[in-house]
């Protein structure tokens, strides 16, 4: 660093670096969402670790009941009537009721693995703002395979890790 001008660059660089680090850390803190399995979520209500009121992600499978739709009676100012969809997410034992106002993904069907982000506003109830299901082709082949249990590897094939 020869002169004052270059020193100013160094100082500027350090300040920017600190600002960037600050952005990263605060961003991480405010933008992370805990992903909680259904069973754990329901169990937690009883204990002091209640998640009620928190925004979180629930991981599970889509329930087998058909999705219920409720259309609003009044139309909105821009036209058309809004709607809410009600479905359940389960972990093969317990389930949670989810309400969601937006579009369900194409791969959403009973039994699909699903991740739902939203506010857990009451015991067993989630108001979702985002619903994600897994990309089907890679996942479903494995699922169905293990269900029927017949798919085994031959000597020259790769072993496929069994799903739990």
């Amino acid at each position: 660093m020869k002169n004052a001008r270059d020193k100013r660059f160094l100082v500027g660089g350090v300040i920017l670096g600190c600002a960037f680090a600050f952005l990263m850390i605060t961003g991480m803190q405010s933008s992370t969402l805990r992903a909680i399995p259904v069973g754990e979520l329901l169990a937690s209500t009883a204990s002091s670790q209640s998640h009620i009121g928190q925004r979180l992600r629930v991981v599970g499978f889509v329930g087998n009941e058909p999705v219920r739709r409720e259309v609003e009676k009044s139309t909105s100012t821009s036209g058309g009537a809004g709607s809410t969809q009600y479905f359940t997410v389960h972990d093969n034992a317990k389930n949670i009721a989810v309400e969601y106002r937006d579009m369900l993904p194409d791969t959403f069907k009973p039994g699909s693995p699903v991740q739902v982000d939203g506010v857990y506003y009451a015991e067993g109830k989630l108001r979702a703002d985002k619903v994600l299901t897994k990309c089907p082709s890679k996942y479903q082949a494995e699922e169905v395979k293990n269900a029927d249990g017949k798919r085994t590897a031959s000597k020259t094939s790769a072993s496929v890790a069994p799903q739990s």
Partner: protein
Amino acid sequence: MTLPLFGHYLLLVALATSVLTIGATFSAFGGENEAALKRRGVLLSWAHGGSFASWLLLMAASGVLFTLFLTDNFAVHYVWSNSARAQPLFYKISAFWGGQSGSLLMWAAVLSTYGLLIAVKGKKKFPDIGPTAAAVIAFVNAFFIGLIILQANPFGTIEGAIPKDGFGLNPLLQNYWMQIHPPTLYTGYIGCTVPFALAVAALIHRRFDAEWAVLVRRWTLITWIILFVGIVMGGIWAYETLGWGGYWAWDPVENASLMPWLVLTAFLHSIMLQGRRGILKNWNMVLVSLTFLLSIFGTFLTRSGIVSSVHSFAESDIGGYFLGFLAVIFIATFALIWWRRDDLSTPATVETPFSREGTFLMGNWLLLATTFAILAGTIYPPVYEGFYGTKLTVEQSYFTRTTVPLALLILAIAGIGPLLSWQRTSSLEFMRKVRGPIWFAVLGIPLFVAPLLYFLGRWHTGAGIAFLLVAFLFGSIASEFWRGAKSRQRTTNENLVSAMLALPVQNRRRYGGYIVHIGLAIFFVGIAGSWAFKIELPPRDLKIGETLLIGEYLLRFDGFLRPQKMDEHKSSDVAAKMTVLRDGKPLLNRSGQAVFLTPRVEIFKAAGEDEDKQAMAGQPEQTARRPAIMTNLGHDLYLALLGYDMETGTATIKAYLNPLVMWIWIAVGLFISGTAIALLPERAPVTAPRSARSTLATPGAEHSGNGAHPIGDLLPINLAREIEVEIAVARAKLRSQNASKNGDSRRVRLARDIETEIAAARAKLQSQTNGATNSAYWQCSCGRSMQSEDRFCASCGATRPAEVSAQI
């Protein structure tokens, strides 16, 4: 022998030939004595043969897999899980890369093609670097082939009864993007191995000269643009087909492809500095290794299942192998860099940040910071889970928060860069050059920024700053074109426009790069518009005749549409006719008809049941929503049909209005054309004393010239200076080595190598500048002293006087 077994054997032999290439190259360069040198030619031709054989075998193996798909051979597990009898031919082909094993085979096949290209092209000009780089590629490929054989063999067969039909490829993947996005992306992604291989070869042979830098830069540019296009294709696919109205979700797999690209961009810029001034050799080695490591890490993230993603493959043990390979490469590369650290150090440096090199370096830092932010956000969940057991997910807001400020800084640097001179910029000169762009930016506020924000509907700080910086960048590059054209006009009789158009033709790399930067600016405009100003309505139920208002458009649902003949694979195919109105009147297309959009819902049938239970495992019923998009320069009107009720005549519509999306695609076009211009081979040089350029970037001298340097953008003046410095260093080294008699044999070799390199470079410089290696000067009438090689005065542009020309 069955076809799958044959395919399997092809893989085994391909592994063997890869090992042959590695071994033969290793022993070819093993010794320096006479016998070894004689053997070298033979060994290298074995290695070359090995590269060719691996390529041939992997192509054959790929051919086998294609055949298995096309002949519906469901005895093969991979074919069963990705294809079906009724699957259209098109998608039987793309099913090749639809799963883990096939995509790894594609990786190996593409990589072997790169290896062959390097081996063939390198033979003539780079007899040492070429084969060694091919051997490095063979090494990486050996890992992949071994991995395929052990863990992900596409030729594995099913034991027991052969199923009558396959599972099939999900209908959502059955569109033309599946044909082009994965192969393009993989070609670019795998291409990150090539600069890395060239760098390792350079480290082994201790050859880091300008010619090598130019070679690496070329390969890097090719990989860079292919990878960029591959990533963009993924975005377009998501946008056009998947119906969630966006093109980038900061999904871990998306990030995995973006990170190597960002570091590759940084490397692309700093390798230019190495080619020009021989600096930053260490830095470049680190950058190129980082690019390759990130590409392997990226594929590890995708395939290991440790991050949850819509793209991810099913979990398997394969992740561990990648981590192991990653560790090996990391340790080996950095050991190599450490071993050659003396060769990598140069006396020349980036003297001050206030220079062209300085802006390149700052740009590098910003790109690395962006990569770091993305990497942190992507691996934070699995790392956290490893420590605390809780699963976490990082939302999109983290990524936009961290990358947007960095993107704005990059935009600013890209604007300032062309205004600074090489080595150091005088403040006076900078003030003179920056005036034009600042005026551009200032005038841009009422002429560009304000109207654009008005069009978009509201104020947004980030977008406002971005638009201002874009105006500045435009001004900066326009001023460069202006200066270049003006100085060109001094020697040619062109008008301003033809002079400007001739600039990219004459100086391909610089002006190609400027075009790419303009593309970058427009890219940011498009992203700012579509991200910060998008309007997204929640789904609405509309009865026939009802309307939906979004932005300035009114959409009227006019009924359902069905195809006359429905595809046999589908159980239903319904579209909603949405007429588009603006200001109360329907929009009219060019032929005067009302414009309407038809978002669609298709339902694909479940695979039929069969007596054979295994065939029952087919594709379940699948719904696919196809959005309808109306694009113009201002907005994309994007509609998705979510559901419908025929009885009540109701359609559920989700509407988005995404501003400025078309500009993103225009920008991509500029990226591609700028890169194509930069890649075109330079024109053959004119023989006479070539016009050199001065060290201080000034209008007249820089752009004068009637023929490009054979090696491109080299500055012989800087080279001469550098050579002088290096001669001094070498002499000092030799002196110290002589003083301590019989010094370290490595040092002796080092000193001798330096002297040889310098002598060679001197000879080259001599032949190029016709003997003018001494820094002779001539005085211009304006008082400025110029080096004898300069034909034009840097300050006033006057031509070098005749008597000086005669001396050269």
